[in-house]
């Protein structure tokens, strides 16, 4: 069963960062987002993404190191959001 939060995050990533030739469903839950040649994302992309996530999910990312850990993959991002916002959609049962 797919995780609705993961699916929403993939949509946000593609929209916010205007990724070309990448569909949300192409992004794997545990695939590295930064440092991967496929996405070619950098710190300015991270900035844009963090601002969008903070706005949409009401979370706070405090430091650049915290951002780096949270944005490692879609799965880590979802876990970070759930930890910071109890109103976020719960993870589906394993």
């Amino acid at each position, binding site marked *: 069963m797919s995780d609705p939060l993961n699916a929403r995050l993939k949509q946000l990533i593609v929209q916010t960062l205007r990724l070309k030739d990448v569909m949300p469903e192409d992004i794997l839950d545990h695939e590295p987002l930064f440092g991967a040649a496929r996405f070619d994302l950098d710190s*300015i992309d991270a900035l844009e993404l963090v601002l969008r996530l903070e706005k949409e999910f009401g979370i706070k990312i405090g430091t650049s190191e915290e951002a780096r850990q949270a944005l490692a993959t879609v799965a880590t991002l979802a876990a970070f959001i759930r930890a910071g916002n109890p109103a976020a959609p719960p993870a589906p049962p394993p």
Partner: protein
Amino acid sequence: MSPAVDALPAGIEACDCLTPLGDATATAAALLAGRRALQLCPVLGAAGGDPVPLALCGPMDESVPPRWLPALRRLVATIPGDRWGTARRPLIVTSSNYGVGSLYAFTRDRDPRHLRHGTPFACVEMLQREFGWGETVNLVSHACVSAHLGLVQAARLLGAGLADRVLVVTFDFVSPFVAGGFHSLKILNASLPAPYAVRATGSIGLGDGAAYAVLTRDATPFRLEAHTLYNEMHHFTGNRPDGAGFDACAAAIAGPARGRRVWIKGHGTGTLEAGRLEAEAYARHLPRAPLVSWKGSLGHTLGSCGLVELAIALASLRAGRIPGTVGGEAPCCTDSVALGEFASVGYDGAILSSNAFGGAHAAMLLAHA
């Protein structure tokens, strides 16, 4: 490609700065006492926001006239008199921000008076009117190596025989626009900076700063002996992770420093990776030179840091004591980081390092008896 070293000696006839701790002498004394100018303040000034470390000369919010003008009046009053801004006595004004915060203020309150000093040219025209400076003025803005570039340009004008004395003036005052930008990058956060410390999260502070230097071809007790500049062209907010840019700059300035006993005033803002790469590069090329950063107290004065910290270095040398890395903490990323103050006796030179967005690396050799 290795960066070139610009061996154009320029005498420093006069130099001073203004920080929240006072002029260069007062600031050096405060640093020796371990005082931090940084305090946690709302990132957007009166508009609130998260607390972040800022070292301010007054309330951060944009005003009309701009809040940096009274501070510059105090500083400029101490500059030796001359026909500044004329052909043989050109003026170089540097800043990374100039009045950019005023443009942001205009977008919020639509007060057109902000626009009178909202661009670099408008700022400098205001300063020319205010201080009676002439038309021979160069503007330099290259992020956080701006003041360094101004000093290089001044040395080149002198070296080419195009000027007899050159006045370099720099100023950068924090605004909600600038603080908000760094806060968005998350490198300006709720923690006070600890330059060169090995810790889990990095942080910088931002500070108000202004400074000037009068450079001359005449022999003076302190002189800028050599400069180097290198832009690694990797990314506009990131350095090459292998540290090649820092290494190239440190290797280049180590050449003219050979045979001297030097200490290093590093850039050291408090970010983890850049601090480590800078410290490692200098430890490699100048292994016996102690490394200090003063941004843990003063915050990062952005484009002005190169000249603000030069003025503090000169005041420290006159006092015979070099402030340590205020706000730093063990463990440090290299053994060369000096957390405590030390005597200047026995040293006959200092390397002053500045780095900037865009992967720009700059260093100069300050020589003294």
